[in-house]
């Protein structure tokens, strides 16, 4: 019996978890449970990232999604999950439509995944074991516009600028700030004001 391929094993594990809980999200009714399942699914995806030598990305996934996004979601849930709202069933017709569309999409994607020939050929297990992940410093430098991995870039212009993502990084950062401010502005509580208006309406 040949040496077991732990990479494959863990991949299988995480993949199954991710897919299973994703489906659970689809079928679940209770919004909070959906959130819970989603967390698990995303966590599993983070595991997949780790397997694919993207530790930093995995950590970010955990931090941002499972930490930030999920907590945000839970906030929303807490504020809106009450009795009837918590679970809202949809008609069977919708389900069928969705199933058809989804199935078509899935078929298409799978066909695409297996159709391209030179994707299908993986490295051997030994090679995979030999591959060492790119340290997160490279990623950071890439964001800063210094591309360590492209030193053999033939195009001199691209090499001088290192074809990094500094601009994109800046734009994203500013965008994030703006969005968060805007979100805070949108989400500020207007409840009390509504009550007052209601009172005013009752008065005359």
């Amino acid at each position, binding site marked *: 019996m*040949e040496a077991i*391929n732990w*990479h*494959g*094993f863990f*991949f*299988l594990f995480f*993949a199954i978890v*991710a897919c299973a809980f*994703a489906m659970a*999200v689809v079928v679940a009714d209770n*919004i909070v449970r*959906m*959130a819970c399942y989603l967390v698990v*699914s*995303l966590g599993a*995806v983070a595991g*997949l*990232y780790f397997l*694919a*030598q*993207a530790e*930093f*990305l995995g950590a970010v*996934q955990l931090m941002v999604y499972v930490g*930030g*996004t999920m907590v*945000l*979601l839970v906030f*929303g*849930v807490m*504020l*809106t999950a009450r009795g009837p*709202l918590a679970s*809202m*069933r*949809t008609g069977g017709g*919708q389900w069928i439509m*969705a199933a058809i569309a*989804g199935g078509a*999409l899935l078929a298409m*994607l*799978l066909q*695409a*995944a297996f159709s391209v020939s030179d*994707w*299908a*050929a*993986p*490295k051997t*297990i030994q090679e*995979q074991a030999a591959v060492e992940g790119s340290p997160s410093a490279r990623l950071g430098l*890439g*964001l800063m516009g210094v591309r360590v991995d492209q030193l053999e870039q033939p195009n001199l212009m691209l090499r001088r600028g290192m074809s990094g993502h500094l601009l994109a990084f800046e734009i994203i950062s500013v965008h*994030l700030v703006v969005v968060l401010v805007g*979100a*805070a502005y*949108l989400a500020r509580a*207007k409840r009390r004001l*509504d009550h007052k208006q209601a009172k005013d309406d009752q008065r005359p």
Partner: protein
Amino acid sequence: MNLLAQPVGLPHYLVVSAILFVCGVVCMATKRNMLGVLMGIELVLNGANLNFVAFGSPMLRAGPSDGLGLDGQLIALFVIVLAAAEAAVALAIALNFYHTHATVDVDRGEELKG
């Protein structure tokens, strides 16, 4: 194919991402709860991200060329950040929607229906 024996390849990742993606789409398509739709979007984004990472990963493909290389991870990073931003805005919208309509049922927000 026995993954315990064979090496993991690009197609495997693609399959997983495809499943996630479709789950997301179906979730968006079937949930009436606005937050459910939001979660669907998160799933879709994750599927896409997984693709980026897989294409960027050096170990999934034979031969020297490692596809997207670092760009895969970088783009995935951007996607995650944008997803966070989008979630924040979407939640804010949901809360406002709840304040005005006292519900999060997306079917009820159809004032602009033609």
